């Protein structure tokens, strides 16, 4: 009986997700497309929870839907003010489109067949048991954080560099957005009350990451949400430090701490990012705190499109 309930639930969840995904991409009005995309992202977080991936659900809701959605809506606001009316073009299907549809149907069939073949006769189960046997030597008990910050720490190191490069690229384009108007009573009331709570939650998420779903990326995203909320309610600096030098330092602190700890361990004769067993817990926490700070600052600057805001001195138009 219970299996039946689960299959019905799976069926409903998948059809809802596919329907949302399909409609987000094929509605005529871009504004409705973005709204549906945000709904799709939230439903996707539900799918991650269903597939027993709570860390991904947190990150999907915070970064994949929340911040990406905020970014898209801000982009829409600029595009609409530039283009006047909301863009409601009806894409007419040319022959190229039909060809493309045929090609993607074939691709879908090939990929589906390949996936079924991969899952059916699968001799090697993934790296799960390797991770669980080594888990006690990783310094944290949450397996995803162990993989992210110990076993595959080099991946996370490069990924923080990707985030940094993206923001450096945005900064060089110098496309700062018009600041928002001073918020009315309700929004500023909400902001004054919500922002401190968001900061506490982000600290909690950072701390809990060691033994339960959470960690640097989720807490960085929540901190960035506080910054975005400040920005929306009229605080131009969006909570970022006013002085340019501090802002630059915060941008790179995540990658820098990673590199310094890696090099420090090499000086002590161990490999790059090869944590000694005794300190690995605290080293990971140190890296995570620095990563949270730089993730939050870079995500906020991505939303601001790199503008320093009125508070920053105008030595150069972007920090």
């Amino acid at each position, binding site marked *: 009986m219970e299996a039946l309930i689960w299959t019905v639930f799976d069926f409903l969840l998948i059809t809802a997700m596919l329907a949302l995904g399909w409609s987000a991409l094929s509605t005529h009005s871009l504004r409705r497309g973005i709204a549906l995309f945000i709904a799709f992202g939230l439903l996707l977080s539900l799918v991650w929870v269903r597939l027993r991936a709570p860390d991904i659900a947190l990150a999907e809701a915070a970064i994949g839907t929340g911040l990406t959605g905020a970014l898209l809506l801000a982009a829409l*606001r600029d595009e*609409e003010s530039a283009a006047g009316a909301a863009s409601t073009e009806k894409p007419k299907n040319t022959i190229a489109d039909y060809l493309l549809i045929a090609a993607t149907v074939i691709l879908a069939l090939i990929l589906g067949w390949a996936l079924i073949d991969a899952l059916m006769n699968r001799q090697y189960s993934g790296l799960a048991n390797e991770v669980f046997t080594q888990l006690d030597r990783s310094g944290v008990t949450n397996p995803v954080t162990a993989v992210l910050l110990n076993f595959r720490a080099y991946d996370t190191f490069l990924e923080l560099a990707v985030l940094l490069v993206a923001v450096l690229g945005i900064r060089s384009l110098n496309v700062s957005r018009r600041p928002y108007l001073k918020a*009315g009573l*309700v929004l500023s*009331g*909400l902001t004054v*009350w919500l922002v401190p709570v968001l900061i506490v939650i982000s600290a909690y998420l950072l701390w809990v990451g060691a033994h339960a779903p959470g960690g640097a990326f989720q807490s960085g995203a929540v901190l960035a949400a506080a910054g975005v909320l400040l920005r929306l309610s009229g605080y131009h600096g969006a909570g970022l430090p006013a002085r340019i030098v501090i802002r630059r330092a915060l941008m790179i602190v995540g990658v820098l701490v990673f590199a310094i700890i890696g090099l420090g361990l090499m000086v002590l004769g161990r490999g790059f990012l090869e944590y000694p067993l005794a300190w690995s817990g605290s080293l990971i926490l140190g890296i995570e705190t620095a990563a949270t700070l730089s993730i939050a600052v870079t995500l906020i600057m991505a939303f601001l499109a790199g503008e320093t805001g009125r508070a920053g001195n105008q030595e150069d138009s972007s920090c």
Partner: protein
Amino acid sequence: MAEYIAMALITTGLIFFIAGSIGLLRLPDLYTRLHALTKADNVGLGMIVLGLAIISGDLITTFKLLLVWLFVLASSAASAHLIAQRARRRERGLWKP
């Protein structure tokens, strides 16, 4: 016994959600829809949170669930107000994009 109370609470909560969505589809203009959504969904969520708290039993999860409910209440009330305010201004032609 607690199971059944929780079950009852959650189903009534669901009924409120369904009422909210029907309100969204059927009601004529923006303001009434906003009204339906924020009112019905928040009560529905309150019911579900209560039901889940009973099922979970321990205090910390109950507190977290209440926190979730508080956040949804605050954000949906604030956003409903903002949407309504923007619609009012647009009607009176005050709004400049």
